[in-house]
């Protein structure tokens, strides 16, 4: 039963566009006629706090949340956040991390050796510089779509299906930037 469900755990910092990315993933799965549940928490978390979104899809989904040790993919839009939620990755699961560092409020410097600690926990971890790729695509705020592009490579939907969903969700004048961001993210992990 479990092998019919795909669990994607998306995390980062409030304001990084995590919810839009999980919205697009959900749209793609829904358009495929799959059962899909997506869960996140509103409120306090948006004030610069840690934000997570759970997306589960497959033939029949019950719980709307991913439990510890279940995520097929953990996509973290910020480096330290990957480590905060790493116990949600299943054995043999994959981690994709934006190497961007956002110092939590109240701290003066970023903690060291985060990369190493992530890779020790999950050997199959890929780091990408999504901020740089977003800039290359045309806007720093496209980090979320770069990350979407990156994890999309490991899901069974076609590039067209992704692009249709992106076009339907993002503001019209940003479509080009976002499609470019998607392609750059996808290319960054498919080498």
């Amino acid at each position: 039963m479990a092998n019919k469900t795909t669990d994607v755990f998306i995390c980062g910092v409030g304001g990084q566009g995590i919810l839009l990315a999980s919205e697009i993933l959900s749209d793609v799965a829904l358009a495929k006629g799959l059962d899909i549940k997506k869960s996140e928490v509103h409120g306090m978390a948006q004030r610069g706090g840690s934000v997570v979104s759970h997306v589960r899809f497959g033939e029949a989904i019950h719980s709307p949340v991913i439990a510890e040790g279940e995520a097929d993919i953990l996509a973290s839009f910020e480096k330290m956040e990957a480590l905060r939620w790493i116990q949600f990755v299943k054995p043999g699961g994959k981690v994709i991390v934006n190497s961007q560092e956002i110092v939590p409020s109240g701290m003066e410097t970023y903690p060291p050796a985060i990369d190493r600690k992530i890779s020790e926990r999950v050997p199959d971890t890929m780091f990408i510089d999504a901020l740089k790729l977003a800039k290359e695509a045309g806007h720093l705020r496209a980090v979320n779509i770069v990350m979407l592009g990156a994890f999309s490579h490991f899901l069974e939907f076609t590039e067209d299906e992704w692009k249709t969903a992106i076009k339907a969700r993002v503001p019209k004048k940003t479509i080009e930037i976002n499609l470019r961001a998607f392609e750059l993210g996808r290319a960054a992990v498919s080498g």
Partner: protein
Amino acid sequence: MRVLLSGNEAVARGCYEHGVKVATAYPGTPSTEILENVVKYKDDVYSQWSPNEKVAFEVAMGASFGGVRTLVAMKHVGLNVAADPLMTSTSVGGDGGFVIVTADDPGMHSSQNEQDNRYYAKFAKIPLVEPSDSQEVLDFLGTAYEISEQFGTPVLFRLTTRLSHAKTPVELGERTEVAQKEYVKDTSSRVVIPAHARRLHVKVEKRLEAIREYAETSPLNRVIEGDPKVGVISSGISYQYARDALPEATFLKLGLSYPFPVELARKFCERFETVYVVEENEPFIEEFLRYAGITNIIGREKIPACGELNQRIVRDSISGEDTAGEKTPVPPRPPVLCPGCPHRSTFYTLNRLKIGSTSDIGCYTLGVMPPLEGIDTCICMGASIGNSLGMEKAIGKEFAKKMVAVIGDSTFVHSGMTGLADVAYNKGATTVIVVDNSITAMTGHQDHAGTGTTLMGESTTKLDYIKLAESVGVKDARRVNAFDMEAVKTAIKEATDNDEATLLVMEGPCALQVRGQWGPALVVDSENCTACGLCLRLGCPAISKDEDGKATINPLFCVGEFCSMCAQVCPVDCIAVPDKS
């Protein structure tokens, strides 16, 4: 059409499809988006924000008296505020169908407690409907109205955070209009003088028994056949966790869990040696089973009482294993007051003047975090003012110089006005500070009686805090520009130095609402910065230290001259807008 809707969106859609005509609420996470989505159907459904849940409840009840289907929505603790009308509305009963939505918050993602509002159904003797996903929210809401109208009772409709905020597929339908019932004066049912109320109580008890019989065969309560050896009883979101944890088991899924269908449950339990009762937080179902003498059950003894469940917790609780996996310690990333937040000046100033505060529910509760650390107490909506007055009465008038009440504009409208009247009436010296960003910010920017706009987008009258204060007898009431650090300091000093009640209204818009006013980030002239650290004490996420201990401003976060609190507190004037530095 099949679309993804959150549970809250599905309630709104349900209002539309099931012919609801009036919907009311006061915003509160996780319930807020219900009314925000009902307003999308404003051609068919009238909706409004009320000042608090009690008033919202009473308006909805009045609409039910008026003969239309009506809904009131609130977060779990909101029902405490509305508990007074709730407890008596249940005996007068609905005319137009009346549904009360409670959105509970297991895990306290955005709440001060984890109360399980299913007990309110039992307490108030009204039916409890518990959906498990957005499709059920939409469908069960229709059934809830049918129950309400068939039995003449309000219905409690319970969501939890993971239902309210999870999106799941929903098949949309059309709106069915429900004919309005003509209003007929009926004092024997609607005027609860003791002579009437005694008769009504008997009616409620009979009604409850009738609904219990209905619940025994209601399609909302159903058995999902599976392994004949493993039985599970569950409801709401807990059912989903249990289905994942025990995918092969046979389930009794309760969607109408009160009045408890005891014979259905008894027959189910007789089929198994042991039945697991899976419930988040309180053992609500389990208590009915045990009261009925059904003992072959395992519930609270294994399933934890604190926090949210998930499938892993349910599985581990039953198996006795621990598969949570190890956490790697990571520095916390708590929410903080945003860059450009007008509340910052109040807490910074209180901190510098060594004045504490009794505070309240809203974004400004984040003023408790270091380095601001400006809050001594925070209990419930409106408690700040009474708490301050009480401390003053216990410790003495001088104490009011060292303790002020800090409350947001929306919270003041919700529950602060009566507190202010109390301060004036009982001759308190309390300083009440309304941090007025002219919106209900924490829940995502909803209008209220102090903003001049209704939920349906019409302009309206605007509550005047100063005139209100004067009319209850607070002689010293003034507005202060929250972005003027000197003015804030002067006002707080004067207000706390005097022996009279004072109201300060710290005015400044929520930074997230005026993005158009954001300018280029301020910069630090690091040559002149003395690394004194005063600007860091503002606790602004945009300001940090460089390797020399000097201040540095993150241009991605700073909102610019619009705020410039840091520039004002800098003793050597080394923070400025770029072109002036």
